[in-house]
């Protein structure tokens, strides 16, 4: 789906076309759920926040400026919804096991390794301040430009660069150690 398609869908959604907005949800749900998880560190809370973000965007679709990209506008709303939920709800301490089923692979040894890497990356992410987590996930995993991340988070671009640098350093250690184990 191109940016033009998205703008056309957003235009139809602004005229009340729920199916058009549903197509946008389908497109952006994976990213919205990952970004919400990065803030909340709990899958159920992340899904609640992502859903709230989509519904808030649906209600406010008339405020979307079609001269700008749709994705950052939506993600800003999802980030706000996740932060709002975090303030209102104590994050559950029980570990969600949902992601374990998502890691199924053909090769059992590889599956264990991938699961291990995923768990370790999540654990490493949890040690970072929220802003660093968001900066590195949005930049490296989601591909947002640093200037856009800065605008979304309301911080200077230099701070985003610094957060990406420090976040990467911590996560790279984990990635490196797991790769070493795989090589052994």
């Amino acid at each position: 789906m191109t940016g033009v398609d998205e703008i056309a869908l957003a235009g139809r959604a602004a005229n009340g076309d729920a199916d058009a907005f549903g197509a946008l949800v389908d497109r952006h749900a994976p990213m919205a759920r990952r970004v919400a998880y990065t803030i909340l560190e709990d899958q159920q809370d992340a899904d609640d926040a992502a859903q709230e973000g989509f519904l808030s965007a649906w209600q406010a679709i008339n405020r979307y400026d079609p001269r700008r990209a749709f994705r950052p506008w939506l993600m800003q709303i999802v980030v706000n919804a996740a932060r709002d939920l975090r303030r209102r709800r104590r994050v559950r301490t029980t570990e969600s096991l949902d992601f374990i089923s998502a890691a199924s692979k053909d090769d059992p040894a590889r599956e264990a390794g991938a699961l291990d890497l995923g768990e370790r990356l999540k654990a490493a992410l949890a040690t970072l301040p929220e802003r660093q987590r968001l900066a590195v996930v949005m930049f490296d995993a989601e591909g947002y430009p640093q200037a856009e991340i800065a605008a979304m988070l309301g911080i200077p671009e230099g701070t985003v660069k610094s957060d990406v640098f420090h976040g990467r350093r911590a996560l790279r250690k984990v990635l490196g150690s797991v790769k070493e184990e795989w090589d052994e």
Partner: protein
Amino acid sequence: MSDMSPFNASPDVELGSALREALEAPHHEAFVGRVRARLGQRGRAWEDELAGWFWQGLVAASLATVLAGWGWTQTATPQQAEASVASELLNGERPGSEILLVAMTEGQ
């Protein structure tokens, strides 16, 4: 491995891919279905609906004003227009007309 410089503006592809996989949430279809089902339950905010009408109304009002002005300039002769301005100044119907008249007569 990416450049670890804080000024590096390129995403770390390998780390990004690993992060996406680690953070990938299951049951995509179920999630999308749940959100879609709630779209109909939650209507759009009335102020947003009004906002949509507000801009359309503003554009319509601006067009009407421009058209009325254009129509007046097409129907009124230059003499009528000048007479209208002069009579308003002389009659003192406009605030500040006395000051304007004094300034004009004193050549300022």
